């Protein structure tokens, strides 16, 4: 009896649901047309308001603005408010997108003509937006017209890194806050083991040997997130500079991965890897776990990003410090000029206003705001965060070498870097791997990437 009741009342429920379903479907149709009418109503009212105001000379401008920091939403809203105060006819419409989905979202929006006017971009990763997709607006004219702005940055060549290649030599991105790889270390562990901050790569190696001998992970790095690859590449770069071969094909990123400089870099990286300098199972470990290793004092140093320093310091009692990865003996450290920045989309209808917003973001007022509230490292000269470690890094950057040659790739390195990571990981993980065989594989992929962007 009970079961019958159960099976009878549920069908009633279902019939009801079916009816509701069909009704909703009809209602949704109505809603769609209603929403359409509503959104058409709004621009009219704004225009009416600005036409009514006697002083309104400029047409209302709506800037769509895309960035990736949900944790700084409050600060960014304040930044926008300050801008809108100074420019009452401009409205900035912000949108936050997670950093790892930024490209997909951008792509969908651009394909549908919904692209933002100003978007986040890494200064050193503009190649896709300049080469592949002609999306970034050149900013050189604006910079030339405003020399004060052009020269306000902490290093004269900070803008240079967003000049992607010789075929399209324009500044594509304005830096906003510095973001670069640093070695974050535990000061107490260093003093416990009578260690000093290494000044050269060779000293770094000795420091790591000493730590490893004491059962401490010297330099925890994430193989998964490509940090070991970045180190290997910087070793290779140092080799090329040392040998004087950092020119010609190298400048276009077309050097051979089978060259002696590159192979030596790979072998050095493997030596360090095999000695356990990066921690056991570096490939299974992501950025978060690396931070954990530092916090639980299992590692003395980690390869991290300057933006991690304030948060990490909060979580641990020992004092943390940071330094730039040292160069090989005889070479000066090349300052990392990578930053989080913003670029203007070519499809924008308001290029002047968009650049005004960029200028606002790099104004002293805003940079100070961000430095004090989020501990981000400003891109302007003579500004400090008030944090000893970060300011020490700022000084290092301001004082470092400006005359190193910089590669300007003629091709899109994104997928290639994944393929190289794969080959390099195989080389590192396989005890009997032959370095020339791996280099050959990597060079083959390299050539393919170069060819397909011709």
């Amino acid at each position, binding site marked *: 009896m009970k079961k019958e009741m159960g099976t009878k009342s549920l069908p009633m429920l279902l019939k009801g649901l079916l009816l509701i379903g069909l009704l909703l479907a009809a209602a949704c149709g109505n809603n769609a047309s209603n929403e359409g009418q509503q959104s058409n109503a709004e621009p009219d009212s704004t225009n009416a308001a600005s036409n009514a105001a006697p002083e309104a000379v400029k047409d209302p401008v709506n800037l769509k603005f895309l960035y990736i920091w949900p944790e700084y939403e409050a600060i960014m809203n304040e930044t926008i408010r300050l801008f809108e105060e100074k420019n009452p006819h401009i409205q900035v419409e912000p949108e936050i997108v997670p950093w790892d989905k930024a*490209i997909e979202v951008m792509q969908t929006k651009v394909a549908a003509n919904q692209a933002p006017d100003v978007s986040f971009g890494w200064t050193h990763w503009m190649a896709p937006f300049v080469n592949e*997709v002609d999306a970034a607006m050149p900013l050189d004219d604006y910079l030339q017209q405003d020399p004060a702005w052009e020269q306000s940055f902490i290093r004269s060549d900070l803008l240079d890194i967003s000049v992607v290649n010789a075929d399209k030599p324009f500044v594509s991105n304005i830096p906003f806050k510095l973001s670069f790889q640093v070695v974050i270390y535990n000061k107490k562990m260093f003093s416990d083991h009578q260690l000093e901050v290494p000044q050269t790569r060779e000293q770094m190696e000795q420091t790591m040997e000493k730590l490893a001998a004491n059962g401490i992970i010297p330099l925890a790095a994430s193989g998964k997130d490509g940090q070991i690859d970045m180190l290997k590449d910087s070793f290779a770069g140092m080799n090329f500079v040392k040998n004087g071969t950092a020119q010609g094909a190298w400048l276009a990123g077309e050097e051979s991965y089978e060259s002696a400089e590159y192979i030596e870099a790979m072998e050095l990286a493997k030596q360090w890897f095999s000695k356990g300098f990066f921690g056991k199972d570096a490939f*299974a470990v992501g950025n978060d776990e690396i931070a*954990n*290793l530092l916090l639980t004092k299992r590692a003395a140093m980690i390869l991290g990003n300057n933006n991690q320093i304030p948060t990490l310091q909060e979580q641990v009692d020992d004092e943390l410090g940071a330094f730039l990865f040292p160069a090989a003996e005889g070479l000066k450290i090349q300052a990392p000029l990578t930053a989080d920045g913003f670029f203007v989309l070519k499809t924008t209808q308001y290029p002047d206003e968009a650049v005004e917003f960029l200028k606002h973001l790099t104004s002293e007022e805003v940079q100070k705001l961000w430095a004090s509230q989020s501990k981000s490292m400003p891109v302007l000269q003579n500004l400090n965060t008030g944090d000893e470690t970060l300011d020490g890094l700022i000084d290092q950057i301001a004082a470092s070498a400006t005359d190193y040659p910089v590669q300007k790739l003629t091709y*899109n390195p994104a997928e290639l870097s994944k*393929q190289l990571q794969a080959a390099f*990981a195989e080389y590192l*993980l396989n005890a009997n791997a032959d370095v020339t065989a791996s280099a050959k594989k990597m060079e083959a992929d390299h050539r393919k990437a170069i060819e397909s962007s011709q």
Partner: protein
Amino acid sequence: MIARKYTLAYLFLLPAVALLAAFYIYPVLTSVVRSFTDWNGFDAGFLWVGWGNYKNVFGDHHFWAATGRTLRFAFVTTIVQTILGFLLAFFIYTLVSDRWRKLMRVAVYIPVILPGAVVSLLWSNLLSPNFGLVNEVLRAIGLEAWARGWLGSTETAMNTLMIVNTWKFIGMTITFYIVAMLAIPKDLIESAKMDGAGSGTLLWHIFRPLLKGITEVNFILSLIGGLKAFDLIYMMTGGGPGDSTTVLGIMIYRRAFLSFRFGEAITMGIILFIVILTLTLISRRLIASREDEQ
């Protein structure tokens, strides 16, 4: 009468077919066209390249390697999931304790419900080489030598991912099997038991044949899911270490959003689709033919 019968039938089908056309047929046709171009996914303009993309893809050894990995991933997870799911379903079905039987029936589906992001986060933590519970347990019971970076070694990464994938989805297989088992008329089972059939005979001679239909459903859904696998793998290993877990889903994603060679990405998607369709149709034939023998 017949004409009216079919009118109603087509009417019933109308909304679904309309959605099918708008959300699948039209986009796929557009995409097929785009696969013959060098579209980068952003710009409105593109150039016709004919079979160029297809040639590039078929000539790319990375593509073939990824295909091999994908097939291996899909088949191993599907076969394990179907067989293990069947056995576990039977195990739960025959549980003596009423409370536990009902509890387990409900509990097995829970991993399926957990969002992919949650599963990746939790399992990555469990498997972490330095802090993970899995390794801690191994060390605690004296199997120190087995403790390792499960997701960080080229030998174990793929297998580990297969285990996590099975963990997440086997609940669906088990649930479907249990529901089908519950539908088997009780008298059939009773008479078999009275004839002296033990669990093993019950399983093999009674349950297995009657559950062919649901086996097909389970097999096909697992197969399709396995061949398309992307989310879990991307979030847990990103395709690494090395490229030991770079399956087709990941390759397509990179080609589209890292290389901005959308035309080629779509080409790979189309090839993958044909592979899935072919394997599915073959599987259905194989399983169905055995069912007809009944």
